[in-house]
């Protein structure tokens, strides 16, 4: 299904400045990031200064201002995951993919993000790939997960 247009996201919210965060949430959800173009449109349609749109978009962690990789690996670094070795998991992802958190791998396939708590603390360390939860992660399990995502994507490309 194609993502909803910016026009439909803005529907019934035009000229309502208080809807700014909700609109940006939807843009982020459907487009993966918030582009300069979409910020300009949102600014015009809601009646919020572009400066304020940028200030909100850059303040909240939920919003990315650059495109992210096809697969977003989120590593929970909340306290419960931290004491159970979340750092190892982050080290594994960084070492394996050769990118730092928030960067995109050269092939455009991966972005690593660390998140302060995913709320599944009893199952730590927790990782999500594109929203799918993985509990009790170890460096080895993450290595396999990344490999399988990579394999699925590269096979998809060669089949095209």
């Amino acid at each position, binding site marked *: 299904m194609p993502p909803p247009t910016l026009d439909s996201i803005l529907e019934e919210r035009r000229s309502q400045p208080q809807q700014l965060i909700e609109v940006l949430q939807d843009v982020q959800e459907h487009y993966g990031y918030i582009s300069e173009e979409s910020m300009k449109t949102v600014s015009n349609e809601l009646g919020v200064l572009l400066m304020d749109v940028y200030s*909100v978009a850059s303040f909240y962690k939920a919003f990315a201002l650059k495109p992210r990789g096809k697969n977003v690996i989120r590593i929970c670094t909340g306290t419960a995951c931290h004491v159970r070795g979340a750092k190892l998991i982050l080290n594994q992802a960084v070492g394996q993919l050769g990118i730092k958190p928030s960067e995109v791998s050269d092939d455009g396939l991966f972005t690593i993000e660390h998140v302060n708590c995913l709320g599944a*603390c009893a199952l730590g360390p927790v990782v999500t790939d594109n929203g799918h939860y993985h509990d009790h992660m170890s460096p080895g399990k993450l290595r396999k997960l990344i490999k399988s995502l990579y394999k699925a994507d590269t096979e998809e490309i060669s089949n095209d």
Partner: protein
Amino acid sequence: MTKTKTIKSLEALRKKLLKDRKKIQSTLIMCGGTGCQASHCQEVVDAVKNELFEQGLAKSVCVRTTGCHGFCEQGPLMVIEPGNIFYCHISPDDAHEIVTKTIREGEVVEHLLYTDPVSGKQVQTELEIPFYRAQERHLLAQNRLVDPCSIEDYIAIGGYSALVKTLFEIAPESVVREIKDSGLRGRGGGGFPTGRKWAACREAPGDEKYVICNADEGDPGAYMDRCVLEGNPHLVIEGMMIGAWAIGARQGYVYVRNEYPLAVKNTRVAIQQAREFGLLGDNILGSSFSFDIDIARGGGAFVCGESTALMSSLEGKVGEPRPKDLHTVVDGLWHKPTTLNNVETWANVPSIILNGSSWFASKGSKGSKGTKILALTGHIKNTGLVEVAMGTTINTVVFDIGGGGSNGNSIKAVQTGGPSGGCLPADKFDLPVDFDELAKAGSMVGSGGMVVMGEETCMVDVAKYFLTFLQDESCGKCVPCRMGIDRMLEIVTDITEGNGTPQQISLLEELGSTVSETALCGLGKTAANPVLSTLRYFREEYEKHISEKKCPAGVCQALITYTIDPEKCTCCGICKRACPHKAIIGKKKQVHAINLDLCQKCGICRSECEFDAIQVK
């Protein structure tokens, strides 16, 4: 669908639902919380439903997917009623056996029963499990009774009857008095008396007032609000409605973390259902009370858990706190009087109204009434959500409910209250879970996170972890928080890297108390707690890092080296394959070694080695 426009139609619907329920022979209650979803419970639900259909039992046996049961470590888990049979770690392949043996023949499937890690014995019913037995599950127990996406389920168990009582039997000022008398205090961290907040908001001048449910649970290591909102959203909505009636609000908001997609979804469904049933909207149940709720998704900023920052965020702005010269009960959302309470606080309201304030006040300790949900996590055998009467000791929570340290290791500390709280050492575990007592000891109940730390945890690293978290989350508006946290982190980093000096300890204490006294909001005021509490109880660990340049727990990267014990190395090659930095050398059948020039001290090799051959010094 029956619209419940009057009390009569609501009660008629309740009667009908209960009558229908009597036809059900047994109920399979499947936990569908985020934790169990991570353990793929949906596949089990599908398999069980399919099996019931194939065996012709689909009509007489009900499968109810509910919110979190609390014992996340054991997921996917199921309780079968009647009989209270508890099955854990269920896979879709077990569906046939469960239906054939337990449902048809009344026999227990032994390999799905829970084994108590302390006694080593198998336990058949949920009530017998030590993890549950020592708890007082008032709020959490309700999760099992309802499918969060079914308002009918909630009505069937007596839902919205506290609202009926409020609207038709109790005057708003009496509702406020009832909450005051109950002794309910805010569950989000502050512990402020809820009744006083409501009274001040009710008395504040103005016709336009708001209620807000704070579900921006940002404390890492705490997830009770997610669980309550996700598992029983109508309970929270009912609490908010009672609060709105008491203070005179017509509009409410639920501000929920976007990282909790299931909570967002279930709350949306619940609000929609309540509107369809006429329980939200104009002239609710034929009364003069009109009220509606909207949902707002948080943007992932920890500071938005603070009331004024949350309100700025709800207004569509940057979530920066503002000075509280005028409290939010007078000057809140859109500068109107606003009552903001946390999810767990709202969830406690309906039962206080139904059972009376003295019922609530009879539970708990002198200054902290009722029960509190705690998130028990970290290096402990039984992890999950735990609900105990306030005043219960940490010992009871950690040992009787939690079963003690994982892998038989001893427990060094418990971190309570999230980044605003502190670390308490094992000799303080006789302290009660009580707002005032924990604050006196330099920590706090906070939202109820309880992270257990074993001997393998470095307390200086823990302080560094929280400072890094807070530096990242500080909104930067006030100088003490923005600069103070930066400076404290610099010092603690020096110490963890072996560059610390003895004078830095007193400097840390001085900085910490200055930040506490001068920061603008709760985030900054409490930011020094993790540092100050670890300095108070684990000072010798700081001193060892400084004088001996050693990390006793073997955690701080700059102070440790990894080596391979040739006696233990079996030349299996796992570490070599695992090392992302290619720092391990060795061929087949040859003892491996670490190239210290390439080693980044990430620790991955050690976690992968099955023979304990990699040592850290």
